[in-house]
């Protein structure tokens, strides 16, 4: 069944966005990412203009992350306190990032910086998560039956973090940090997300796992909670200033993604933290490889529409 999209000004087989929404919704429920880094290029491949693809995807993520946050909240996986500190930081960072983009554009090399940042961040995050979780899985196998040893190293870092003022306990995640830490890390992710034009879920997840030392399942729930707020803001701004949100396309996408997010959450409960991390790492690395190919292989056409990542 074909439907006409009033803002994208094109017609699409309704099953495609529903299926795509379901697949990306699964990833949201499993890993706590919005999945914009997958969805936006796929929508462009289906013939949706790049600007409409990005804006409509954020509308869809509002639905998927609501569904996912709700499911994870029922499982006790959402650390609202941590989420709010990170959110405050990332809103601040987002505003800074937008100014930085303006500066880069004025300097004339924005596209280069954006694309390189994107590839390096995706590759770096994916690679680190992949090897870290691989070694963790190996360790767990060796240590099966024995007590799990505390992670070694970085004790200087720990001492430094503990010496910061405004220490507070995040009971849901079972960690204690200075209030400043999530705000600063949130700002860092917010700056990068604004530069790359993405929601930043794939950056927020490793930040929470490796820097805030939160357990993986709490990370997924809390990340979805954050993604929800960022995408509400982005959807409104896109609809209000750029008129690029396609309501029909969003409804098709979210019809699939809200169900996907629920099923993803159920699946996620059956997997261990390391298994979740390594799966996410593989997906992020696959996207990196695709981007590297796009950057190095001679394109079929030397013309492209603007507005994509």
């Amino acid at each position, binding site marked *: 069944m*074909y*439907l*006409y999209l*009033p*803002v994208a*000004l*094109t*017609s699409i087989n309704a099953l495609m966005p529903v299926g795509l929404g379901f697949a990306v919704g699964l990833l949201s429920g499993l890993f706590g990412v919005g999945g914009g880094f997958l969805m936006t290029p796929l929508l462009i491949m289906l*013939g949706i203009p790049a600007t409409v693809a990005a804006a409509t995807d954020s*509308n*869809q993520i*509002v*639905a*998927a*992350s*609501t*569904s*996912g*946050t*709700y*499911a994870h909240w*029922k499982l006790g996986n959402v650390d609202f306190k941590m989420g709010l500190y990170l959110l405050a930081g990332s809103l601040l960072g987002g505003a800074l990032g937008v100014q930085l983009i303006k500066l880069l554009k004025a300097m004339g090399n924005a*596209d*280069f910086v954006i694309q390189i940042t994107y590839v390096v961040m995706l590759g770096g995050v994916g690679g680190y998560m992949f090897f870290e979780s691989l070694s963790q899985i190996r360790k767990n196998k060796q240590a099966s039956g024995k007590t799990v040893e505390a992670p070694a190293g970085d004790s200087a870092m720990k001492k430094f973090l503990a010496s910061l003022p405004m220490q507070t306990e995040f009971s849901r995640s079972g960690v204690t940090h200075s209030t400043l830490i999530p705000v600063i890390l949130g700002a860092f992710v917010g700056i990068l997300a604004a530069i790359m034009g993405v929601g930043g879920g794939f950056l927020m997840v490793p930040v929470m796992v490796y820097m805030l030392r939160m357990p993986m399942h709490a990370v997924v729930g809390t990340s979805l909670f954050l993604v929800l707020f960022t995408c*509400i803001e982005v*959807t*409104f*701004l*896109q*609809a*209000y*200033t750029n*008129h690029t*949100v*396609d*309501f*029909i396309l*969003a*409804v098709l996408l*979210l*019809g699939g993604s*809200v*169900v996907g*997010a*629920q*099923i993803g*959450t*159920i699946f996620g409960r059956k997997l261990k933290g390391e298994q979740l991390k390594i799966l996410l790492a593989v997906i992020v690395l696959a996207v990196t490889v695709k981007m590297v190919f*796009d*950057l*190095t*292989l*001679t*394109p079929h*056409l*030397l*013309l*492209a*529409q*603007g507005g994509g990542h």
Partner: protein
Amino acid sequence: MRYATPHTIIVRGLMTFALAGLVLLPWRAGAEADGPATGAVTVKLTTRANHDHIDINTFYHGSTVSVQGDCAPDTDLVIKISAAEGETSLKQKGKVGGLLWMNVGDLHFSRVPGLYLLKSSGNIEEVVAPEEASRYVLGYDALKRHLGVEPAADAAERAEIVGQFIQYNEENKLFARQTGGIEFKNENGKRTYYTLFDWPYQAKPGDYVVDVYAVKDGRVVDTARAPVKVEQAGTVKYLAAMAKNNGALYGILSIVVALASGFGAGAIFRKQGGAH
């Protein structure tokens, strides 16, 4: 793509306009038989499209437009469907540091028809003389000369970019050309023509024109024109207007629907015992 300028297609004085009201009539047998002043053509060229109005509704997936009319016996026909010309910008990809393909700048195209569908009874480059082709923008060679592009360092670069631009639009189904595909019939000593165009769903709402050119010895000897209007209707029209004119409400509505769906799915799965 914006349609900034009104029609700039040159219209000859002798041309006849097909009337919108003729749509419902069957094949028009008694068309005007008076030849133009040149005397070379004895039958006046006429044209009409099967519908002059295409509604874009919720289930729209493109359409077809048939074009038919009378024509002189010894002429070739060129049929062009086009839209008002406008401007468009695209990113140009280039190699950075000899290794990476990236967007290296913006290209601005002008005098771009929003749609360019062309059919000719014979090979367009052989049937129409080059200067006539340029005058009426008939064929890709003429279109390439007609399009404006900025910046292009020299003729070679311009040719490369314009060629790519046509390919880009062909892939988006907005440009197409075909040799043949026009049926001719001789009935009661009268020659008639008929052809069917696939109307791409990618063609945006707006005003389009069907131009028919009768060509003899490389010259355009007669022309006829019929309009086609493409308009959004029903829910599509309502949503498009709301997105454009009432962005804040539209944004809030989109967010509310998304939030409600998310909670709705959560509630349904809870009832089904999906989570404990």
